[in-house]
Every structure is written in C-alpha cells, then in structure tokens.
C-alpha cells in the first residue's frame, strides 16, 4: 500500500511560537491553540508548501538531522504525520 501523502497548512494559517521545550501553535482557521514538542515543529518547517509521504520526508530530514541509531525513521514519521493530521495542522494531500 503506498504511503499516504500529507500537505502542511497554507502559509498564513498557523502562528508558530517557540517557548523553550514546547512550541505553541495557534491555528487561525480553528482558533485552537496546540502545544507540541520536537519533532513536530521540525517536521512542519521541513514540509513547506509541498506534498510529502513519510519515506520522502525521512530522506529530507536526514539531510539536516542525525538519525544514526534510530531504526525505521519512516514508521516514526508516519505516526507523527498522522498525529499532526488529527490536530488539523497537516491535511491528507
């Protein structure tokens, strides 16, 4: 079964404010406040405006982050993307 693809929110939809170990995100569409920790902010930043599936996103993130010793980054990313979708911060492409 092919990896589902996801797209991040449009450019002005989210207001992202780092607060130490937490990142607070205000979704202007729903008026909801979300509080997330790594790797969510990094994932959202890497996605930009394009569509991504977990496998491709894993390769992209490996360019900036050290994943040595982490097994199956793809599976972990697929879970995080589903969680972001449940929060409404990314959508199924």
């Amino acid at each position, binding site marked *: 079964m092919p990896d589902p693809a996801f797209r991040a929110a449009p450019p002005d939809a989210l*207001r992202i404010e780092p*607060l130490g*170990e*937490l990142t*607070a995100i205000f979704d202007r569409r729903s*008026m909801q*406040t979300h*509080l997330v920790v790594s790797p969510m902010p990094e994932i959202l930043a890497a996605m930009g405006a394009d569509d991504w599936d977990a496998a491709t996103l894993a390769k992209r993130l490996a360019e900036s982050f050290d994943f040595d010793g982490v097994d199956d980054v793809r599976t972990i990313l697929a879970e995080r993307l589903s969680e972001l979708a449940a929060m409404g911060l990314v959508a199924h492409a």
Partner: protein
Amino acid sequence: MRHNIRIAVGPVQFRIGSDWAEPISALEQLYAGYPQDDARPADATVRLFAARPWRRWVRPSVHIGGDFVVPDALPLPLSMGLLAAEMGMNLQVALGWRRHMLLHASAVARDDRALIMSGESGSGKSTLAALLGEGDWRLMGDEFTLIDPASGDALAFPRAVSLKNEAIAAVAAQVDAARLGPLMAGTPKGDIRHLIPRADAIADMHEPARPTLLLFPRFGGAAAIEPMGEGEAFVRLTEASTNYVALGEAGFAALTRLVRETPAFGVSYPDSATGIALVEQLWAEVAK
C-alpha cells in the same frame, strides 16, 4: 430594582441591584473609598433576587443573576448576601470581560512593576497579596489580574480582598478594624471576611504596571523555589485564564509575550512569613 449601587473597580463599572437592602449596605461600607461616577454606563450588571416575591421575607435566599448566569446555581442565605454580591461580580467579569486577558491571579506592584501570583483556591495567592499590600507594595488585586493585549501591561482590579479561614486572623492582626467587612461564618468556602484595600491601592487603581515576576505559589510544604520554563508557564496560565479562548489570536499573542518577558517560578512555603521572604528574595534577583 429596589436597592442599587454603582461601583468602579479598575476598568470595570459595576451596577448591582438587589431585592434586599442588606447586601447593598454592606457593599456601600466596603467600597466607600472608591471613586463614584454616576454618569458612566455600567459594563457589568449583577442582580441579587428572590426566586418568588414571598422569599424576600420567608427563609430569604439570594439568587445571583446578571448579564451572565450559572444555571441551577444554588442560592445563598440572606446572611451571606455580601458574599453573593461578590460572587456575582466575579462571575460577570470572568464570563463577560473581553477588553483584557483575565488571569485568575493576585498581583502587587512596586515602582510600576508587577508581581503576579497565579494559583487555585488554597494556594495562598490572596493572603500573600493582602499581606504584601500592607507592606511597601501596592495591592493590584487578589482574584483577577488583567493583561492589556496591546501593551502587555498588568492592570489593577482591586476588589475587596476575600480572606478565608486562618487568613482572617493573620491579616486582621495587622490592620485597623475599620478596614474589615462583616465576618461570614460557615459559608460554602469556609469563614470569610473582606479586607478593604489600602487608600493608595484604590487611588492608584488605574496605574498600569509592567509584569516583572510570575509566581505559582503552593501553600504547605517546605520552602522551595523552582524555576519554570516558558512552555510550562504558558500551559498553566491558559488554565488560569477565563477568557483566553474567547480572545483568539490576541490572547495567544498576549500570553506568549507575557511568558517570554516575565521570569516564572513555582514556590512552596510553609507559612506566610516564609512566603513573603521568598517573594522578596526572587524580586531582588529579577528586578535589578
């Protein structure tokens, strides 16, 4: 209604109407020193009413009404009419005020800078604020602190301080009896007595103060100070705000700014004297 009073506290103009004279007389005594402006329209309305006409005299019980109501709320006996009035005032502000972000927190000021203490009932925030206010701090409020979304300033809301149980004796020992309201024993919240803020706190109630220290006090337990990160302070304050959600992005921006610009600490203390010492210690560190 038959009996009425208008009271201005900080930016809020209240009008309180009542089927009975007693709660209004008690309010007149507590708020005698506050500025009076009969021309200013009311921002918040409280109604103390009898459920049926004969209940004004037969087992009189005071229902709390106004712009905003809590459905099925239990009434209070007339002997606690003043408590009903104060609860009604809290309710109107908590549910209806949108001009500023509301924090369930006490605050005191020194040199135009504010110490804000956020906590639930029993944390000691009201008692600490009252005691600091009798020293060289200006009492800004014991129940609500207002944050201006545009400037980030803290604004005072100095209502009569609601002292409960042991705090009554501790504060009464330090103040003139003329500054205390009637004792209401056995209320749903225990024994309650109100303290009228000092004259300087009332005179300066429109003066903003820059948030400088944010404390989350916990009464009971050994003296301890724990620095709190911005993220945790943010979460705790969203829980302590009655109108954070209603303010939308303005609330998000105001709260983000507040936690970034104001150092925060959790503080445990076994007694008031220790609590005050910890406050002064932290203030000396952050307010240099």
